[in-house]
């Protein structure tokens, strides 16, 4: 039996060096550091993206601004390891080629930091899932971003090998952060399209080949640096460099054409059971019942009233006569947090103001102002109405007189009979959106 055991022992293969490097030492720690840092960023800004798939994708993409410098600094730290351990000469005696030795210690950090980024992105998507109100997950940017993070770790490793100073890693981290940050906030120049952390607006999506080009651009640069540093034939570095330059040229030449608005963002879904109908952007289709419910007080009181807009719409452009602008649900974090309206009363008040659509009239009369105030108080009073009334009640005689007249007008509108009020409101809404001083019915 012992003979058999002895024969088998040499046949058992030693674990691959990459396995030992990947499972022990700094690499898993670097991945955890990326995950933790991005976790702090994503948790701190959760109200601004949780619940919207496009917002989640945009915010995850913004984290590249931190993930790339952090990966570069981690690579730089790993690159200086042999110098810190004073094992450079020992490594020099190995039979493996310099490139294999380089990759054995550089690749695990690149893979772990990329895995840390992917894990953070995955967790962000999981956090959005229960609150999503429509749309679908947008993983389009993830491949390009992940490759950029891994490429930064490789580039950082080259820097770490080349610069024998303790401050190399933190300097690289801060320089990378500042450099990417400056590129991110620049609004002109084609070089900004080479920035892997280029910020995008939530409903925008990349053309399908943008992540591929970005991956070739960043990975090409990294491999060119690695080959120039460690390959036996350094001229081979020209190949990835050429690929990177070609991809970079495509990115800069295409410019703003790299991004387009997602088709879904141009669509509306409507609840036509009320007048005006209530429409929200199709990206938040699940919010329609909530929004309709918040506006049900207004639509209930407007039954039978004529001259109303056909619908409330949530759009960026100027409303047509037939449409009123719904208070915007975006950017998330203000009126909507995690798929819920934060303040339905304020939302309803905003929707009332949108119905009135009163422009800044140069010569607005007291009658017009009082009618506007009474309609607002009847349909959906402003959350601050009581405060303003209290301020006026404590003010001078003019303020108190104005308050008395306002309260009387509100009481008159509220005290009208159903038919009379419907006629009055129909006449009132005929003047909405204009400065037709004489057309506003008296109260």
């Amino acid at each position, binding site marked *: 039996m012992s003979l058999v055991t002895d024969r088998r022992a040499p046949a058992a293969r030693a674990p691959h060096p990459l396995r030992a490097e990947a499972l022990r030492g700094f690499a898993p720690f670097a991945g955890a550091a990326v995950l933790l*840092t991005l976790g702090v960023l994503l948790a701190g*800004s959760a109200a601004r993206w949780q619940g919207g798939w496009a917002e989640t994708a945009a915010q995850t993409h913004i984290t590249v601004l931190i993930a790339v*410098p952090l990966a570069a600094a981690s690579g730089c730290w790993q690159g200086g390891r042999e110098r810190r351990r004073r094992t450079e000469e020992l490594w020099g005696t190995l039979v493996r080629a310099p490139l294999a030795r380089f990759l054995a210690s550089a690749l695990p950090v690149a893979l772990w930091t990329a895995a840390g980024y992917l894990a953070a992105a995955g967790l962000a998507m999981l956090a959005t899932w229960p609150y999503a109100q429509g749309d679908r997950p947008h993983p389009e940017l993830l491949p390009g971003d992940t490759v950029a993070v891994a490429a930064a770790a490789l580039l950082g490793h080259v820097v770490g090998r080349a610069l024998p100073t303790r401050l190399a890693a933190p300097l690289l981290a801060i320089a990378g952060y500042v450099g990417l940050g400056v590129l991110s906030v620049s609004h002109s120049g084609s070089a900004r399209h080479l920035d892997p952390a280029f910020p995008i607006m939530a409903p925008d999506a990349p053309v399908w080949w943008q992540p591929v080009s970005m991956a070739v651009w960043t990975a090409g640069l990294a491999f060119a640096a690695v080959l120039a540093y460690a390959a036996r034939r350094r001229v081979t570095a020209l190949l990835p460099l050429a690929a990177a330059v070609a991809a970079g040229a495509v990115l800069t030449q295409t410019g703003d054409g790299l991004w387009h608005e997602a088709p879904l963002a141009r669509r509306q879904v409507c609840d036509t059971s009320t007048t005006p109908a209530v429409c929200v952007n199709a990206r938040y289709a699940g919010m329609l019942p909530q929004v309709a419910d918040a506006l049900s007080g207004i639509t209930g009181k407007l039954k039978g009233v004529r001259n109303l807009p056909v619908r409330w719409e949530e759009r960026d452009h100027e409303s047509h006569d037939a449409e009123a602008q719904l208070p915007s649900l975006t950017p998330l974090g203000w009126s909507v947090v995690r798929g819920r309206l934060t303040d339905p009363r304020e939302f309803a008040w905003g929707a009332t103001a949108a119905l009135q659509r009163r422009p800044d009239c140069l010569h607005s009369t007291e009658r017009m102002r009082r009618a506007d105030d009474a309609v607002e108080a009847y349909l959906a009073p402003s959350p601050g109405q009581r405060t303003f009334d209290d301020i006026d009640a404590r003010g001078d005689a003019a303020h108190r007189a104005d308050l008395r007249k306002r309260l009387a007008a509100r009481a008159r509108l509220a005290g009208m009979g159903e038919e009379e009020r419907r006629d009055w409101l129909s006449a009132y809404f005929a003047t909405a959106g204009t400065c037709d001083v004489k057309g506003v019915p008296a109260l």
Partner: protein
Amino acid sequence: MTGLLLYARSRALPLTLLALAGTTAFAVWAAGSLDAYLDPYRRVPVVALAPLLAAAVIGTSLYSASDELDRTSVRPWWPRRLAQLGALTALAALVLPLAVLGHAETFGPPAVVRNTLGCTGVTAAAAVVLGARLSWLPAFGYVTAVYLASSGARGRAVTVWAWPMQPGAQPGAWAAALTAFVVGAALYAVRGARAEGPRG
């Protein structure tokens, strides 16, 4: 050579002072090129990142190349450690505000002093846990993450967790930064930087 000079050389203090001077010069240049006289909020990158860089410089200077030998000493180390950390932090807190003079209520010298204290505290604590040469990592991760996360964040808690991004007169941010500094400095004075063996 006196013991103090030997100590200073063993901690690479001349290089550290040079790096701090370089950080200040860079901060002055950056603040000047941001046209902050138009809007003090434009100084935020300098107010947040210059103290971070200074803290990284101070943190790496806490490394001892001979910590096994140090531990055999009969004299207590904590006064020296505390003096080194305190003096470097005081120096950084004194020179970095030169980059952002004025606008004390928003993003001026008080905010830079607070961030210098907070970042150095986090870095000193990290030196105890991770080792001096890697001590820049947690502060870098936290400050850069908070930089991006806190814009538009609301609530009272934000003045505490986003302390590096608050205006100079925010008491919550001062409390957080001072706590970080006191805890970090005390930990470092008592424990010293983590011993980094040959596997470091």
